[in-house]
Protein backbone atom coordinates (compact mmCIF):
# COMPACT_ATOMS: atom_id res chain seq x y z
CA UNK A 1 0.00 0.00 0.00
CA UNK A 2 2.92 2.35 0.56
CA UNK A 3 3.31 4.91 -2.19
CA UNK A 4 6.30 6.79 -0.90
CA UNK A 5 8.42 6.37 -4.03
CA UNK A 6 9.13 9.59 -5.92
CA UNK A 7 6.43 9.87 -8.56
CA UNK A 8 6.58 12.53 -11.30
CA UNK A 9 3.81 14.50 -9.55
CA UNK A 10 5.79 14.58 -6.33
CA UNK A 11 8.94 15.65 -8.16
CA UNK A 12 7.09 18.45 -9.90
CA UNK A 13 5.73 19.61 -6.58
CA UNK A 14 9.20 19.66 -5.06
CA UNK A 15 10.55 21.72 -7.95
CA UNK A 16 7.71 24.23 -7.68
CA UNK A 17 8.19 24.40 -3.95
CA UNK A 18 11.89 25.14 -4.29
CA UNK A 19 11.25 27.67 -7.05
CA UNK A 20 8.72 29.66 -5.08
CA UNK A 21 10.83 29.53 -1.96
CA UNK A 22 13.71 31.11 -3.85
CA UNK A 23 11.54 33.75 -5.55
CA UNK A 24 9.82 34.77 -2.30
CA UNK A 25 13.15 34.87 -0.51
CA UNK A 26 14.73 37.05 -3.18
CA UNK A 27 11.81 39.49 -3.10
CA UNK A 28 12.06 39.74 0.68
CA UNK A 29 15.77 40.47 0.43
CA UNK A 30 15.12 43.05 -2.29
CA UNK A 31 12.56 44.85 -0.13
CA UNK A 32 14.99 45.02 2.76
CA UNK A 33 17.82 46.11 0.47
CA UNK A 34 15.82 49.04 -0.86
CA UNK A 35 14.93 50.17 2.64
CA UNK A 36 18.51 49.68 3.77
CA UNK A 37 19.87 51.64 0.82
CA UNK A 38 17.52 54.57 1.51
CA UNK A 39 18.58 54.62 5.15
CA UNK A 40 22.28 54.30 4.35
CA UNK A 41 22.10 57.03 1.72
CA UNK A 42 20.26 59.34 4.11
CA UNK A 43 22.80 58.66 6.84
CA UNK A 44 25.88 59.11 4.68
CA UNK A 45 24.60 62.35 3.15
CA UNK A 46 22.92 63.79 6.21
CA UNK A 47 25.65 63.14 8.77
CA UNK A 48 27.77 66.08 7.48
CA UNK A 49 25.78 68.77 9.27
CA UNK A 50 24.43 66.53 11.99
CA UNK A 51 25.93 68.48 14.89
CA UNK A 52 24.50 70.28 17.94
CA UNK A 53 24.35 73.72 16.29
CA UNK A 54 22.13 72.25 13.58
CA UNK A 55 19.45 71.62 16.19
CA UNK A 56 19.86 74.78 18.26
CA UNK A 57 20.36 77.52 15.64
CA UNK A 58 18.06 79.26 13.21
CA UNK A 59 18.97 79.46 9.49
CA UNK A 60 22.00 81.69 8.91
CA UNK A 61 22.02 83.43 5.55
CA UNK A 62 25.44 85.00 6.04
CA UNK A 63 27.20 81.80 7.01
CA UNK A 64 24.87 78.93 6.04
CA UNK A 65 27.10 76.27 7.61
CA UNK A 66 26.38 77.71 11.07
CA UNK A 67 22.65 77.68 10.52
CA UNK A 68 20.21 75.21 12.02
CA UNK A 69 16.67 74.04 11.85
CA UNK A 70 15.56 74.49 15.46
CA UNK A 71 12.40 76.33 14.40
CA UNK A 72 11.48 73.63 11.88
CA UNK A 73 11.77 70.89 14.48
CA UNK A 74 9.65 72.82 16.97
CA UNK A 75 7.22 73.73 14.21
CA UNK A 76 6.84 70.12 13.07
CA UNK A 77 6.34 68.85 16.62
CA UNK A 78 3.67 71.51 17.18
CA UNK A 79 1.90 70.55 13.97
CA UNK A 80 1.96 66.86 14.86
CA UNK A 81 0.67 67.67 18.36
CA UNK A 82 -2.27 69.59 16.95
CA UNK A 83 -2.94 66.84 14.39
CA UNK A 84 -3.00 64.26 17.20
CA UNK A 85 -5.35 66.37 19.34
CA UNK A 86 -7.79 66.54 16.45
CA UNK A 87 -7.53 63.05 15.01
CA UNK A 88 -7.27 60.91 18.16
CA UNK A 89 -10.65 61.67 19.76
CA UNK A 90 -12.54 61.82 16.47
CA UNK A 91 -10.75 58.87 14.91
CA UNK A 92 -10.93 56.52 17.88
CA UNK A 93 -14.52 57.33 18.85
CA UNK A 94 -15.76 56.97 15.29
CA UNK A 95 -13.74 53.74 15.00
CA UNK A 96 -15.59 52.44 18.06
CA UNK A 97 -18.87 53.40 16.41
CA UNK A 98 -17.85 51.60 13.23
CA UNK A 99 -16.88 48.43 15.03
CA UNK A 100 -20.02 48.36 17.15
CA UNK A 101 -22.77 49.29 14.73
CA UNK A 102 -24.00 47.27 11.82
CA UNK A 103 -26.63 49.63 10.42
CA UNK A 104 -26.78 51.30 7.03
CA UNK A 105 -25.17 54.48 8.32
CA UNK A 106 -22.06 52.59 9.34
CA UNK A 107 -21.63 51.25 5.80
CA UNK A 108 -21.98 54.77 4.42
CA UNK A 109 -19.49 56.11 6.95
CA UNK A 110 -16.99 53.35 6.13
CA UNK A 111 -17.27 54.03 2.40
CA UNK A 112 -16.84 57.77 2.88
CA UNK A 113 -13.86 57.16 5.16
CA UNK A 114 -12.17 55.19 2.41
CA UNK A 115 -12.87 58.03 -0.01
CA UNK A 116 -11.46 60.55 2.48
CA UNK A 117 -8.43 58.29 2.81
CA UNK A 118 -7.84 58.46 -0.91
CA UNK A 119 -7.99 62.24 -1.22
CA UNK A 120 -4.58 63.61 -2.24
CA UNK A 121 -2.98 65.57 0.57
CA UNK A 122 -2.71 68.71 -1.52
CA UNK A 123 -6.49 68.80 -1.79
CA UNK A 124 -6.79 68.73 1.98
CA UNK A 125 -4.36 71.66 2.11
CA UNK A 126 -6.37 73.56 -0.47
CA UNK A 127 -9.54 72.81 1.44
CA UNK A 128 -8.22 74.28 4.68
CA UNK A 129 -6.82 77.21 2.70
CA UNK A 130 -10.16 77.89 1.03
CA UNK A 131 -12.44 77.63 4.05
CA UNK A 132 -10.16 79.06 6.70
CA UNK A 133 -7.09 80.97 5.57
CA UNK A 134 -8.46 82.81 2.57
CA UNK A 135 -11.58 84.22 4.29
CA UNK A 136 -9.44 85.21 7.29
CA UNK A 137 -6.80 86.85 5.09
CA UNK A 138 -9.47 88.82 3.23
CA UNK A 139 -10.66 90.31 6.52
CA UNK A 140 -7.21 90.76 8.04
CA UNK A 141 -4.74 91.47 5.25
CA UNK A 142 -1.32 89.99 5.80
CA UNK A 143 -2.57 87.35 8.22
CA UNK A 144 -4.15 83.94 7.90
CA UNK A 145 -1.36 81.37 7.57
CA UNK A 146 -0.91 79.62 10.88
CA UNK A 147 0.46 76.53 12.55
CA UNK A 148 -3.00 75.76 13.88
CA UNK A 149 -4.42 75.61 10.36
CA UNK A 150 -1.55 73.38 9.24
CA UNK A 151 -2.02 71.06 12.20
CA UNK A 152 -5.72 70.90 11.37
CA UNK A 153 -4.97 69.91 7.78
CA UNK A 154 -2.70 67.10 9.00
CA UNK A 155 -5.33 66.11 11.57
CA UNK A 156 -7.97 65.83 8.85
CA UNK A 157 -5.65 63.52 6.96
CA UNK A 158 -5.10 61.36 10.03
CA UNK A 159 -8.78 60.92 10.97
CA UNK A 160 -9.62 58.20 8.41
CA UNK A 161 -6.37 56.37 9.15
CA UNK A 162 -6.93 56.33 12.90
CA UNK A 163 -10.58 55.46 12.47
CA UNK A 164 -9.87 52.56 10.16
CA UNK A 165 -7.19 51.04 12.42
CA UNK A 166 -9.39 51.39 15.50
CA UNK A 167 -12.26 49.69 13.68
CA UNK A 168 -10.09 46.83 12.41
CA UNK A 169 -8.29 46.29 15.71
CA UNK A 170 -11.55 46.24 17.69
CA UNK A 171 -12.96 43.65 15.31
CA UNK A 172 -9.96 41.44 16.00
CA UNK A 173 -10.82 41.24 19.70
CA UNK A 174 -12.40 37.80 20.17
CA UNK A 175 -16.11 37.56 20.87
CA UNK A 176 -15.29 35.34 23.85
CA UNK A 177 -13.73 38.30 25.65
CA UNK A 178 -16.90 40.30 25.09
CA UNK A 179 -19.02 37.40 26.34
CA UNK A 180 -16.89 36.91 29.44
CA UNK A 181 -17.33 40.53 30.44
CA UNK A 182 -21.01 40.84 29.52
CA UNK A 183 -21.79 37.62 31.40
CA UNK A 184 -20.69 39.38 34.61
CA UNK A 185 -23.43 41.93 34.04
CA UNK A 186 -20.93 44.52 32.81
CA UNK A 187 -22.63 47.21 30.72
CA UNK A 188 -21.57 47.43 27.10
CA UNK A 189 -19.76 50.78 27.45
CA UNK A 190 -17.72 49.52 30.39
CA UNK A 191 -16.80 46.34 28.53
CA UNK A 192 -15.63 48.44 25.59
CA UNK A 193 -13.70 50.89 27.74
CA UNK A 194 -12.02 48.52 30.21
CA UNK A 195 -11.75 45.21 28.36
CA UNK A 196 -12.00 45.55 24.59
CA UNK A 197 -10.15 48.83 23.98
CA UNK A 198 -7.20 47.82 26.19
CA UNK A 199 -7.03 44.48 24.36
CA UNK A 200 -6.81 46.36 21.06
CA UNK A 201 -4.53 49.07 22.41
CA UNK A 202 -1.24 47.91 20.92
CA UNK A 203 -2.69 47.64 17.43
CA UNK A 204 -4.34 51.03 17.70
CA UNK A 205 -1.12 52.67 18.91
CA UNK A 206 0.80 51.13 16.01
CA UNK A 207 -1.82 52.40 13.57
CA UNK A 208 -1.72 55.89 15.06
CA UNK A 209 2.06 55.95 14.84
CA UNK A 210 1.93 54.90 11.19
CA UNK A 211 -0.58 57.66 10.49
CA UNK A 212 1.60 60.15 12.34
CA UNK A 213 4.66 59.02 10.40
CA UNK A 214 2.78 59.43 7.16
CA UNK A 215 1.54 62.96 7.78
CA UNK A 216 4.82 64.11 9.32
CA UNK A 217 6.40 64.02 5.88
CA UNK A 218 3.53 65.75 4.11
CA UNK A 219 4.66 68.92 2.38
CA UNK A 220 1.79 69.81 0.08
CA UNK A 221 -0.89 70.61 2.66
CA UNK A 222 1.60 72.73 4.61
CA UNK A 223 2.44 74.93 1.63
CA UNK A 224 -1.11 76.26 1.72
CA UNK A 225 -1.49 76.49 5.44
CA UNK A 226 1.65 77.26 7.45
CA UNK A 227 3.60 78.87 4.61
CA UNK A 228 7.04 78.42 6.16
CA UNK A 229 9.18 80.79 8.18
CA UNK A 230 12.86 81.64 8.61
CA UNK A 231 12.30 82.36 12.30
CA UNK A 232 10.61 80.69 15.22
CA UNK A 233 7.12 82.11 14.83
CA UNK A 234 4.17 81.70 17.18
CA UNK A 235 1.82 78.86 16.41
CA UNK A 236 -0.91 81.34 15.49
CA UNK A 237 1.18 82.69 12.61
CA UNK A 238 3.28 81.30 9.76
CA UNK A 239 5.56 78.59 11.12
CA UNK A 240 8.14 76.29 9.64
CA UNK A 241 8.09 72.51 9.42
CA UNK A 242 10.70 69.90 8.55
CA UNK A 243 9.26 68.89 5.15
CA UNK A 244 9.02 72.56 4.12
CA UNK A 245 12.59 73.16 5.25
CA UNK A 246 13.72 70.07 3.36
CA UNK A 247 12.00 71.30 0.22
CA UNK A 248 13.48 74.76 0.59
CA UNK A 249 17.02 73.56 1.18
CA UNK A 250 16.86 70.92 -1.53
CA UNK A 251 15.87 73.55 -4.10
CA UNK A 252 18.27 76.18 -2.78
CA UNK A 253 21.17 77.44 -4.92
CA UNK A 254 23.57 77.13 -2.00
CA UNK A 255 25.44 73.78 -1.89
CA UNK A 256 25.69 73.93 1.90
CA UNK A 257 21.93 74.20 2.18
CA UNK A 258 21.54 71.37 -0.37
CA UNK A 259 23.58 69.21 1.92
CA UNK A 260 21.58 70.38 4.92
CA UNK A 261 18.43 69.10 3.19
CA UNK A 262 19.77 65.56 3.79
CA UNK A 263 20.37 66.32 7.45
CA UNK A 264 16.82 67.65 7.68
CA UNK A 265 15.48 64.45 6.17
CA UNK A 266 17.52 62.43 8.63
CA UNK A 267 16.14 64.51 11.50
CA UNK A 268 12.58 63.87 10.32
CA UNK A 269 13.27 60.14 10.21
CA UNK A 270 14.81 60.16 13.67
CA UNK A 271 11.87 62.05 15.17
CA UNK A 272 9.46 59.43 13.82
CA UNK A 273 11.71 56.68 15.15
CA UNK A 274 11.89 58.25 18.60
CA UNK A 275 8.11 58.81 18.70
CA UNK A 276 7.52 55.19 17.71
CA UNK A 277 9.84 53.85 20.38
CA UNK A 278 8.30 56.19 22.93
CA UNK A 279 4.79 55.03 22.04
CA UNK A 280 5.81 51.37 22.36
CA UNK A 281 7.46 52.06 25.67
CA UNK A 282 4.46 53.99 27.00
CA UNK A 283 1.94 51.31 26.02
CA UNK A 284 4.06 48.67 27.64
CA UNK A 285 4.44 50.68 30.83
CA UNK A 286 0.76 51.64 30.83
CA UNK A 287 -0.33 48.06 30.53
CA UNK A 288 -1.32 46.78 33.93
CA UNK A 289 0.32 43.47 33.12
Amino acid at each position, binding site marked *: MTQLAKTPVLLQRRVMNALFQVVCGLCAILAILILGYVLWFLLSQGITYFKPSFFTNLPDNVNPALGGIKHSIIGSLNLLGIALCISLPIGILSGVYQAESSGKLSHVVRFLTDVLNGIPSIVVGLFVYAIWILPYALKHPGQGYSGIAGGTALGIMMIPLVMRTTDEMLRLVPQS*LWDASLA*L*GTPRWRTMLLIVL*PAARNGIVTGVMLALARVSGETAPLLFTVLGNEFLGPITGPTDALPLRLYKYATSSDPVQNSMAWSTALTLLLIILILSILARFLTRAGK*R*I
Partner: protein
Amino acid sequence: MQTVPCVTVKNVSFWYGINQALFDINMVIPQHAVTAFIGPSGCGKSTFLRCINRMNDRIDGAKMTGTIQLNDQDIRDRTVSVEALRRTVGMVFQKPVPFPMSIYDNIAFGPRTHRLASGRMLDELVEKCLTDAALWDEVKDKLKSSAMALSGGQQQRLCIARTLSVSPDVILMDEPCSALDPNSTHRIEELITRLKTDYTVIIVTHNLQQAKRISDVTGFFLRGELVEFGPSETVFTTPTRTETDDYINGRFG
Protein backbone atom coordinates in the same frame (compact mmCIF):
# COMPACT_ATOMS: atom_id res chain seq x y z
CA MET B 1 -36.33 14.82 45.31
CA GLN B 2 -38.77 17.68 45.64
CA THR B 3 -37.11 21.05 45.98
CA VAL B 4 -37.80 24.72 45.43
CA PRO B 5 -38.07 25.68 41.76
CA CYS B 6 -35.45 28.18 40.64
CA VAL B 7 -35.81 28.56 36.89
CA THR B 8 -39.20 27.84 35.32
CA VAL B 9 -39.25 27.46 31.56
CA LYS B 10 -42.54 27.58 29.63
CA ASN B 11 -43.02 26.97 25.91
CA VAL B 12 -39.66 28.36 24.88
CA SER B 13 -38.89 28.31 21.16
CA PHE B 14 -35.90 30.00 19.60
CA TRP B 15 -34.88 30.99 16.09
CA TYR B 16 -31.61 32.07 14.48
CA GLY B 17 -33.12 33.99 11.58
CA ILE B 18 -35.36 31.44 9.90
CA ASN B 19 -33.71 28.40 11.48
CA GLN B 20 -35.59 27.19 14.49
CA ALA B 21 -33.13 25.97 17.12
CA LEU B 22 -35.45 25.20 20.04
CA PHE B 23 -38.95 23.74 19.97
CA ASP B 24 -41.36 24.34 22.82
CA ILE B 25 -39.09 23.69 25.80
CA ASN B 26 -40.73 23.24 29.21
CA MET B 27 -38.96 22.44 32.46
CA VAL B 28 -38.56 23.39 36.09
CA ILE B 29 -34.95 23.61 37.28
CA PRO B 30 -34.63 23.01 41.03
CA GLN B 31 -32.76 25.34 43.34
CA HIS B 32 -29.41 24.36 44.92
CA ALA B 33 -28.93 21.35 42.69
CA VAL B 34 -26.84 20.54 39.66
CA THR B 35 -28.87 20.25 36.47
CA ALA B 36 -27.07 18.81 33.45
CA PHE B 37 -28.05 19.12 29.81
CA ILE B 38 -26.82 16.40 27.50
CA GLY B 39 -27.33 15.69 23.83
CA PRO B 40 -25.47 15.49 20.54
CA SER B 41 -23.77 18.54 19.01
CA GLY B 42 -26.15 21.09 17.56
CA CYS B 43 -29.11 19.88 19.60
CA GLY B 44 -29.74 23.31 21.10
CA LYS B 45 -28.53 22.76 24.66
CA SER B 46 -26.00 25.62 24.53
CA THR B 47 -28.49 27.89 22.82
CA PHE B 48 -30.96 27.14 25.58
CA LEU B 49 -28.35 27.80 28.26
CA ARG B 50 -27.60 31.18 26.73
CA CYS B 51 -31.30 32.05 26.80
CA ILE B 52 -31.29 31.89 30.58
CA ASN B 53 -28.95 34.88 30.96
CA ARG B 54 -30.00 36.47 27.67
CA MET B 55 -26.58 36.13 26.06
CA ASN B 56 -28.39 35.60 22.76
CA ASP B 57 -29.64 39.20 22.82
CA ARG B 58 -26.56 40.35 20.94
CA ILE B 59 -27.06 37.96 18.02
CA ASP B 60 -28.63 39.57 14.97
CA GLY B 61 -31.90 38.00 13.89
CA ALA B 62 -32.30 35.86 17.01
CA LYS B 63 -35.85 35.51 18.29
CA MET B 64 -37.30 33.80 21.33
CA THR B 65 -40.89 33.05 22.34
CA GLY B 66 -42.26 31.64 25.58
CA THR B 67 -41.22 32.63 29.08
CA ILE B 68 -38.31 31.90 31.39
CA GLN B 69 -38.92 32.76 35.01
CA LEU B 70 -36.21 33.19 37.59
CA ASN B 71 -37.78 32.96 41.05
CA ASP B 72 -41.17 33.94 39.59
CA GLN B 73 -39.75 36.92 37.70
CA ASP B 74 -39.93 36.88 33.90
CA ILE B 75 -36.35 37.51 32.78
CA ARG B 76 -37.49 39.24 29.60
CA ASP B 77 -39.83 41.62 31.39
CA ARG B 78 -39.42 45.26 30.48
CA THR B 79 -38.49 46.13 34.05
CA VAL B 80 -35.63 43.61 34.20
CA SER B 81 -32.22 45.07 33.42
CA VAL B 82 -30.07 42.66 31.50
CA GLU B 83 -27.03 43.67 33.57
CA ALA B 84 -28.82 42.79 36.81
CA LEU B 85 -30.00 39.50 35.30
CA ARG B 86 -26.50 38.50 34.24
CA ARG B 87 -25.18 39.40 37.66
CA THR B 88 -27.76 37.04 39.18
CA VAL B 89 -27.21 34.37 36.52
CA GLY B 90 -23.46 34.00 36.04
CA MET B 91 -21.84 32.07 33.24
CA VAL B 92 -18.69 30.00 32.74
CA PHE B 93 -17.68 29.29 29.16
CA GLN B 94 -16.16 26.35 27.34
CA LYS B 95 -12.76 27.94 26.88
CA PRO B 96 -11.39 29.77 29.90
CA VAL B 97 -11.27 33.48 29.08
CA PRO B 98 -9.28 35.40 31.68
CA PHE B 99 -9.19 39.14 31.11
CA PRO B 100 -5.71 40.31 30.08
CA MET B 101 -4.95 41.78 33.50
CA SER B 102 -3.72 40.57 36.89
CA ILE B 103 -5.33 37.71 38.81
CA TYR B 104 -6.55 40.17 41.42
CA ASP B 105 -8.04 42.55 38.85
CA ASN B 106 -9.79 39.67 37.10
CA ILE B 107 -11.75 38.86 40.26
CA ALA B 108 -12.16 42.51 41.28
CA PHE B 109 -13.57 43.53 37.89
CA GLY B 110 -17.16 42.45 38.57
CA PRO B 111 -17.38 43.82 42.12
CA ARG B 112 -15.91 47.13 40.90
CA THR B 113 -18.46 47.27 38.08
CA HIS B 114 -21.37 46.74 40.46
CA ARG B 115 -19.75 48.72 43.29
CA LEU B 116 -20.02 45.78 45.67
CA ALA B 117 -16.82 46.39 47.59
CA SER B 118 -13.65 48.42 47.70
CA GLY B 119 -10.36 48.59 49.58
CA ARG B 120 -10.02 46.07 52.39
CA MET B 121 -13.48 44.60 51.70
CA LEU B 122 -12.54 43.99 48.09
CA ASP B 123 -9.35 42.20 49.14
CA GLU B 124 -11.39 39.92 51.37
CA LEU B 125 -13.94 39.30 48.63
CA VAL B 126 -11.20 38.37 46.15
CA GLU B 127 -9.70 35.96 48.68
CA LYS B 128 -13.09 34.41 49.41
CA CYS B 129 -13.93 33.90 45.73
CA LEU B 130 -10.54 32.37 44.97
CA THR B 131 -10.86 30.12 48.01
CA ASP B 132 -14.36 29.02 46.99
CA ALA B 133 -13.04 28.22 43.52
CA ALA B 134 -10.19 26.16 45.04
CA LEU B 135 -7.53 28.41 43.55
CA TRP B 136 -6.40 30.56 46.47
CA ASP B 137 -3.52 28.39 47.64
CA GLU B 138 -2.02 28.29 44.18
CA VAL B 139 -2.19 32.01 43.45
CA LYS B 140 -2.10 33.80 46.80
CA ASP B 141 1.55 34.82 46.31
CA LYS B 142 1.12 36.11 42.77
CA LEU B 143 -2.15 38.03 42.81
CA LYS B 144 -0.55 40.91 40.94
CA SER B 145 0.84 38.81 38.12
CA SER B 146 -0.93 38.19 34.85
CA ALA B 147 -3.84 35.78 34.75
CA MET B 148 -2.77 34.78 31.26
CA ALA B 149 0.21 32.90 32.70
CA LEU B 150 -1.98 30.41 34.58
CA SER B 151 -2.54 26.89 33.27
CA GLY B 152 -5.78 26.03 31.47
CA GLY B 153 -7.31 24.38 34.52
CA GLN B 154 -6.29 27.26 36.76
CA GLN B 155 -7.69 29.75 34.27
CA GLN B 156 -11.03 27.96 34.30
CA ARG B 157 -11.14 28.01 38.09
CA LEU B 158 -10.24 31.71 37.90
CA CYS B 159 -13.23 32.20 35.61
CA ILE B 160 -15.44 30.37 38.11
CA ALA B 161 -14.07 32.58 40.90
CA ARG B 162 -14.79 35.63 38.74
CA THR B 163 -18.35 34.44 38.26
CA LEU B 164 -18.74 33.97 42.03
CA SER B 165 -17.41 37.48 42.67
CA VAL B 166 -20.69 39.20 41.83
CA SER B 167 -22.63 36.78 44.10
CA PRO B 168 -24.95 35.15 41.57
CA ASP B 169 -27.84 32.81 42.46
CA VAL B 170 -27.49 30.65 39.37
CA ILE B 171 -24.30 29.57 37.57
CA LEU B 172 -24.52 28.46 33.95
CA MET B 173 -21.65 26.34 32.68
CA ASP B 174 -21.20 25.67 29.00
CA GLU B 175 -19.01 22.56 28.73
CA PRO B 176 -16.58 23.99 31.31
CA CYS B 177 -14.26 20.97 31.21
CA SER B 178 -14.06 20.17 27.52
CA ALA B 179 -10.81 22.10 27.06
CA LEU B 180 -9.17 20.64 30.17
CA ASP B 181 -7.13 17.57 31.05
CA PRO B 182 -8.64 14.81 33.25
CA ASN B 183 -6.99 16.06 36.41
CA SER B 184 -8.27 19.61 36.00
CA THR B 185 -11.65 18.20 35.04
CA HIS B 186 -11.74 16.23 38.27
CA ARG B 187 -10.98 19.34 40.34
CA ILE B 188 -13.69 21.34 38.60
CA GLU B 189 -16.21 18.55 39.11
CA GLU B 190 -15.42 18.51 42.83
CA LEU B 191 -15.85 22.25 42.85
CA ILE B 192 -19.24 22.06 41.11
CA THR B 193 -20.47 19.52 43.65
CA ARG B 194 -19.47 21.88 46.45
CA LEU B 195 -20.98 24.93 44.77
CA LYS B 196 -24.49 23.50 44.76
CA THR B 197 -24.97 24.10 48.47
CA ASP B 198 -24.99 27.83 47.79
CA TYR B 199 -25.81 28.10 44.09
CA THR B 200 -28.05 26.58 41.48
CA VAL B 201 -25.77 25.08 38.85
CA ILE B 202 -26.86 24.38 35.28
CA ILE B 203 -24.24 22.65 33.16
CA VAL B 204 -24.05 21.64 29.53
CA THR B 205 -21.75 18.70 28.95
CA HIS B 206 -20.76 16.27 26.24
CA ASN B 207 -19.37 13.95 28.80
CA LEU B 208 -22.11 11.54 29.87
CA GLN B 209 -20.04 10.13 32.71
CA GLN B 210 -19.59 13.63 34.00
CA ALA B 211 -23.32 14.32 33.86
CA LYS B 212 -23.94 11.06 35.71
CA ARG B 213 -21.31 11.84 38.37
CA ILE B 214 -22.20 15.38 39.26
CA SER B 215 -25.82 16.10 38.33
CA ASP B 216 -28.99 15.70 40.33
CA VAL B 217 -31.27 16.37 37.40
CA THR B 218 -30.60 15.66 33.72
CA GLY B 219 -32.23 16.96 30.57
CA PHE B 220 -31.69 15.27 27.22
CA PHE B 221 -31.91 17.48 24.12
CA LEU B 222 -32.33 16.17 20.61
CA ARG B 223 -32.79 18.28 17.48
CA GLY B 224 -33.94 21.29 19.49
CA GLU B 225 -36.42 19.40 21.62
CA LEU B 226 -36.25 18.42 25.25
CA VAL B 227 -36.76 14.68 24.97
CA GLU B 228 -36.34 13.72 28.57
CA PHE B 229 -36.01 15.61 31.85
CA GLY B 230 -35.88 14.15 35.31
CA PRO B 231 -33.74 12.94 38.22
CA SER B 232 -30.36 11.79 36.90
CA GLU B 233 -30.57 8.29 38.34
CA THR B 234 -33.81 7.71 36.49
CA VAL B 235 -32.61 9.21 33.20
CA PHE B 236 -29.42 7.18 33.23
CA THR B 237 -30.88 3.87 34.37
CA THR B 238 -34.50 3.69 33.28
CA PRO B 239 -35.13 6.37 30.65
CA THR B 240 -38.71 6.57 29.41
CA ARG B 241 -37.83 7.30 25.78
CA THR B 242 -35.93 5.02 23.43
CA GLU B 243 -33.92 7.95 21.99
CA THR B 244 -32.49 8.67 25.43
CA ASP B 245 -31.68 5.03 25.96
CA ASP B 246 -29.92 4.87 22.60
CA TYR B 247 -27.91 8.00 23.30
CA ILE B 248 -26.72 7.18 26.80
CA ASN B 249 -25.79 3.69 25.68
CA GLY B 250 -23.74 5.03 22.82
CA ARG B 251 -25.93 3.77 20.01
CA PHE B 252 -25.81 7.19 18.32
CA GLY B 253 -24.53 10.74 18.86
